[in-house]
């Protein structure tokens, strides 16, 4: 992208009208700027332009120059254009002064019809089963620019179908139109050059280089940019037709990057998550890890009913009963006997309510669970909590988020803490045996999934996952972004902020909060960084509210404590994985 503000402007005539576009703009982009759409397959604005699909052909010309090197003018006083007799591709050509372009002349239309006919010669036309149907460029351009009938009588070339390119991508070579977008993506964005064309002519096929697989963490982006149904997501393949999907703009919560996404749901079932363009955060891409990280919302161990411990057993209860039970249990203790472990996966609204809860109970022990894992240089962040910055701003603690966790664990072990509130986290992250947690007189758990430790809780409050609620988060670079509700929670599970609000009201406080927007309004009134913001002002693309260089000086990074907590997490996960594998080997089902 050329730097638009400083580049000199060129005059360019598009379909007979003069416009001014900055120097360095590609013709196809210049047309797009003024609202003239030029069809394209191989061209993608974030990738290089090979110009191999020939769909973006236009007529191009330059003013005829007189002997004085000035454009000659016709009788109507306008420059006379010397049209190039052959059509040109618009995606590989930058604009130049005085250039003229025709995008809908008879020649252009003829060319587009011809290209479409060529592309469809060997295309299987299996739209009824193709997952791309409904968002397929071949379908759309065929309608807009193609012929209604095929003149092709011969047999079509048979190519391999159902080619497994990698663990997450399946290829149907018959549908491929050889645009090479995927190849260029792997080379230019993912830095993992695994794809290429082999064979010649009609028999050219896309394939992975021998001995290589398309298994990098960004492989599913090739599915997004494939203009036809050749590259398909193995996960989404044949699951649902795209026109049924309700698209909700949201963000990915799998790491601190906060890639902007579109969640596709139908009747409260999430089918896929695709990246949404935001040049400040994720460009057009997102990682496979984050993209597929929504399955846990339908896990078998999802908590569906509020539960109360009675006679040593957890019994399903209704919400008012569970909330009042939780508040009664909490009110037995003074502030320094209670610990609240919140989560960096909670939204700002929920964190604010948590901090209010802590305030009205007088709780000092409050922190979140840190998550550190190796990141990459592309999108994936080291910090796997999506809202560490939100916790840092809103919880108002004097140390780095996650640093106090081990101290809380120690206090629980020593019996100093009598009541433990786990919000959206597994209590095993504290690094102590379940039996010890079972000794706690009060152990309130609000979470999405049931874990071993959940069985020992005195009150269980089923909450919502990221796709089931509204809220805001601050990503690793200090950008405030919005989550939107794509699906309703299953069973009797409830929006987190409502649970926290009710709990807050039950222990005395938190009045006149009737929506999560109200909570955000309170945040904007109390937290300086949020001043003047509202939910609607955040917008779909977010706002930058935090410059990461200027972290508050009151937050010295407590690296050692965080590292300790993360290590316990990793150890837990390793043990869990081993147990899982052992069970799997023995053929034992989960739980």
């Amino acid at each position, binding site marked *: 992208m050329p730097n638009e503000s400083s580049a000199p402007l060129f005059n360019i005539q598009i379909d007979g009208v003069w416009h001014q576009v900055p120097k360095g703009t590609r013709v196809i982009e210049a047309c797009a700027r003024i609202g003239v759409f030029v069809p394209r397959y191989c061209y993608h604005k974030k990738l290089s332009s090979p110009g191999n699909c020939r769909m973006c052909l236009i007529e191009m010309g330059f003013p005829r120059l007189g002997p004085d090197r000035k454009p000659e003018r016709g009788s109507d006083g306008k420059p006379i254009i010397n049209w190039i007799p052959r059509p040109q591709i618009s995606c590989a050509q930058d604009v130049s002064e005085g250039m003229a372009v025709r995008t809908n002349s008879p020649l252009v239309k003829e060319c587009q019809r011809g290209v479409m006919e060529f592309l469809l010669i060997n295309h299987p036309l*299996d*739209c*009824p*089963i193709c997952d791309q*149907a409904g968002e397929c460029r071949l379908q759309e351009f065929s309608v807009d620019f193609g012929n209604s009938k095929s003149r092709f009588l011969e047999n079509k070339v048979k190519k391999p*179908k159902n080619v497994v390119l990698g663990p997450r991508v399946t290829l149907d070579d018959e549908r491929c139109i050889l645009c090479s977008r995927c190849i260029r993506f792997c080379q230019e964005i993912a830095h993992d050059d695994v794809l290429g064309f082999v064979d010649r002519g009609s028999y050219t096929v896309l394939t992975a280089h021998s001995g290589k697989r398309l298994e990098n963490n960004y492989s599913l982006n090739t599915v997004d940019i494939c203009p036809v149904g050749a590259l398909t997501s193995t996960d989404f393949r044949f699951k*649902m037709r795209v*026109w049924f999907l309700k698209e909700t703009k949201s963000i990915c919560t799998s790491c601190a990057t906060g890639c902007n996404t579109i969640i596709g749901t139908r009747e409260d079932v999430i089918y896929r998550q695709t990246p949404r363009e935001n040049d400040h955060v994720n460009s057009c891409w997102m990682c496979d890890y984050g993209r597929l990280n929504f399955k846990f919302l339908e896990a078998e161990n999802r908590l569906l009913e509020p539960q109360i411990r009675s006679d040593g057993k957890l019994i399903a209860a209704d919400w008012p009963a569970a909330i009042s039970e939780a508040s009664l249990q909490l009110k037995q203790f003074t502030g320094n006997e209670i610990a609240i472990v919140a989560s960096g996966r909670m939204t700002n609204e929920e964190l604010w309510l948590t901090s209010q809860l802590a305030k009205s109970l007088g709780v000092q022990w409050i922190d979140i669970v840190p998550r550190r894992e190796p990141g990459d240089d592309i999108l994936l962040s080291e910090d796997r909590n999506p809202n560490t910055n939100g916790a840092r701003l809103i919880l108002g603690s004097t140390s780095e988020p996650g640093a106090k966790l081990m101290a809380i664990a120690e206090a629980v072990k020593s019996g100093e803490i009598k009541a433990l509130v786990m919000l959206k986290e597994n209590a095993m992250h504290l690094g102590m045996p379940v039996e010890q947690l079972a000794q706690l007189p009060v152990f309130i758990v609000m979470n999405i999934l049931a874990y071993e430790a959940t069985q020992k809780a005195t009150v269980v409050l089923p909450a919502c996952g990221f796709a089931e609620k509204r809220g805001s988060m601050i990503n690793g670079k200090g950008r405030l972004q919005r989550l939107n509700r794509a699906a309703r929670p299953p069973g009797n599970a409830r929006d987190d902020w409502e649970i926290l609000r009710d709990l807050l009201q039950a222990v005395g406080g938190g009045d006149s909060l009737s929506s999560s927007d109200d909570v955000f309004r309170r945040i904007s009134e109390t937290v300086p960084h949020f001043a003047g913001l509202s939910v609607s002002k955040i917008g779909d693309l977010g706002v930058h509210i935090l410059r990461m260089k200027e972290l508050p000086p009151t937050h010295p990074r407590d690296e050692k404590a965080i590292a300790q907590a993360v290590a316990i997490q990793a150890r837990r996960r390793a043990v869990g994985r081993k147990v899982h594998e052992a069970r799997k080997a023995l053929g034992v089902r989960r739980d």
Partner: protein
Amino acid sequence: MAITVPRPKLNWRERLYMPAIVAGLAITFKHFKNMLLGRTKVTMQYPEQKWDSSLPDHYRGAPALVRDEDGRVRCVACQLCEFICPPRAIKIVSGEIPSKDRFAKVEKYPEAFDIDMIRCIFCGMCEEVCPEQAIFLRKDYAITGFTRADMVHHKEKLLEIGGVMHGVVLKWNEKK
């Protein structure tokens, strides 16, 4: 603009209304008498008489799935019928055909295909929209059940109603 229909001016005899009432009574009695004497043609006596044999070809009865000559379920679960269905009576769960299967090339088939006949309005949109000519409205019209669940036609029932449809659809032909 509304039209005001002028009220007819009635003379005193008409205003008595008696002749009109008597005439009305005569008409109804004539019908009664003709019926009693068996002169009136009555409607078809449904369960005994049916017009099954004379149903026209375009009759829109229960929708059904058909198989092709090879016994393959023609439906490829494209869900266009589910999309177009005005009362949303159709529910499809798609599945993938395993690669060892004879029809592996087709790739996709309906794992479940339910038509809720309580909802179905026999509009024929599904038949019209189907790109595979897999769903047809057949001549069954007496669809009954004791429960709501009974009234949901599952895939087996639909295929049973539909039977085999002969016709040249070369799309899934290996050669073509």
